[in-house]
């Protein structure tokens, strides 16, 4: 008996206007183009994709920081975009966000205490100064920072420490969901491992669910139970992380997996499979056809004429490909 989903996203679409050519019709590009997904409580979902795949837009839509052009985002069954602004604000304590850039996500003019306590301003404005300070201290301890961090400014911290501060802020309202958009991409390898460990520990101790967005497959594989692969605004493959990465069904997923060097079986500078042609000009967006077809080594006639739907290819696994797993 599956639990009701924590998050369910239905047919989500977000278009952005393209810079208009003089005298031309205003054209739009769909950053997110009909995405469906659900996240069960306690089960983390990783979103993988390259730049321009729409994964960050999806994150902001799930966070209700941006309105979709179509579709719904439900959090614990409630349609976020049907809520009056006040109620949405109250709901926000249940889902928080961690950003990629640890330098841009903390206000340089505020002390850490004020930064970490910010979600409480709205969620629990009745708290006394003392109570707020206690909550901040508790959070700083939970993310492995000393209590004296509270009185310092962000510029006094390294990238990894700043990301811990951002995590403390996201956790202070005890949310069920944390949307993490490339949270370790800006960090050095050694520090990245610290932050990933912390994310895993917090999941264990606080039962938080992650929507974890990254271009780094190894990182996603490490954190996520399930993975969705995005390509040009759509999910092209979805399934449990271990299965999806060990036996990718969609040729794009395979290209991603093969592009990542595996250091565990290092055999000197040498062979790896030829890369797909990622530079192929992707301007021509065929309205029909599979969007990956121009880059796909296995594309056939049907791929250029008919867009494949995301369909189940095995229990719990789905791919948008006419010839999955070939």
């Amino acid at each position, binding site marked *: 008996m599956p639990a009701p989903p924590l998050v369910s996203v239905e047919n989500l679409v977000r278009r952005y206007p393209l810079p208009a050519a003089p005298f031309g019709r205003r054209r739009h590009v769909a950053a997110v183009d009909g995405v469906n997904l659900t996240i069960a409580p306690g089960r983390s979902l990783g979103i993988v994709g390259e730049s321009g795949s729409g994964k960050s837009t999806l994150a*902001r839509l799930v*966070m209700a*920081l941006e309105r979709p052009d179509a579709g719904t985002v439900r959090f614990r069954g409630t349609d976020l975009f049907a809520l009056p*602004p006040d109620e*949405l*604000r*109250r709901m*926000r*304590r249940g*889902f*928080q*966000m961690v*950003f*990629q*850039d640890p330098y*841009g*996500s*903390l*206000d*340089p*003019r*505020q002390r850490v205490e004020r*930064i970490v306590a*910010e*979600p409480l*301003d*709205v*969620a629990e404005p009745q708290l006394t100064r003392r109570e707020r300070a206690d909550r901040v201290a508790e959070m700083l301890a939970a993310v492995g920072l000393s209590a004296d961090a509270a009185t310092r*400014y962000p*510029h006094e911290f390294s990238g990894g420490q700043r990301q811990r501060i*951002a995590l403390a*802020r996201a956790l202070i309202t005890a949310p069920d969901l944390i949307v993490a958009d490339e949270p370790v991409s800006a960090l050095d390898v050694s520090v990245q491992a610290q932050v990933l460990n912390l994310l895993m520990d917090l999941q264990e101790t606080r039962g938080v669910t992650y929507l974890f967005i990254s271009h780094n497959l190894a990182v996603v594989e490490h954190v996520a139970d399930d993975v969705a692969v995005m390509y040009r605004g759509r999910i092209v493959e979805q399934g449990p992380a271990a299965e999806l990465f060990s036996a990718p069904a969609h040729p794009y997923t395979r290209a991603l997996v093969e592009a990542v060097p595996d250091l565990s079986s290092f055999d000197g500078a040498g062979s790896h499979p030829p890369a797909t042609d990622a530079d192929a000009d992707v301007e021509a967006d065929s309205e029909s056809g599979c969007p990956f077809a121009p880059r796909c080594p296995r594309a056939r006639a049907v791929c250029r004429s008919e867009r494949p739907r995301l369909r189940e290819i095995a229990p719990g696994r789905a791919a948008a490909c006419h010839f999955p797993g070939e």
Partner: protein
Amino acid sequence: MKFPRAAAIMQRPALAAGATITLLLAMVALVSLVWTPYPYTDMNIAMRLQPPSARHWLGTDQFGRDILSMLMAGSRNSFAVGFVAVGIGLGIGVALGTTAAVRGGIVDDVVMRLADFTFAFPAVLSAIMITAWLGPGAVNAIIAIGIFNIPVFARLSRGSALQVLSRDFILAARAAGKGMARITVEHVLPNIAGILVVQATIQFALAILAEAGLAYLGLGTQPPNPSWGRMLNEAQTFMHRSPWLAIFPGAAIALAVLGFNLLGDGLRDLIDPKLRRARS
């Protein structure tokens, strides 16, 4: 961006000089409230057009008034004009500019076109028009100068606010459930304050200069209230016989403008984190 410590100020000669000059002038203005060598309105025809001497350090004018006393009292006037004119510009301009940045769309377009419109007129010429319309006088001069500070601050605060608004901590504040008005007060204004302070210093110098110009044209401060600009005006007739009548108020204006500009430039270097890194 953090405000500097005193030690950091003293490491920069231009900033130190600017701060010293403006502080000195401010002190002179304060002292003049309680004491000047002579009452600045006292006329003494017997002592008219005296060159600088031990009794009158900077000499006397055509009515025998003590130049030093008039300059001291005039500094009050200059400071008042600067404060109020910059205050008008800051208050209204920043409100308009940040609102335009936050709201965008039509609001942004209207505010910015208004700013363009105001900018299209040469400031001093427009100040002349306004004082001509409202009548000459210190208050009207201040209002006229203040109005032309509004678009300066509106544009600056809009541009800087847009930059701040694009940063992730604004998204984080929205994710925390804060509304844009609150975010503007808590995040945007503190982050653009430094830039605004620098601009305010520079506008302060311009206001002093503008007031002197208006007073010189007879459109500013009216007699018997002392004003550096009007002293210059009155000096014209006697310039060949008694050059000090023009030299000292001219020097006072130049010194004040120089002081505030040095202070503004110095503060900008100090506050701009990029420049700071490059130097240290």
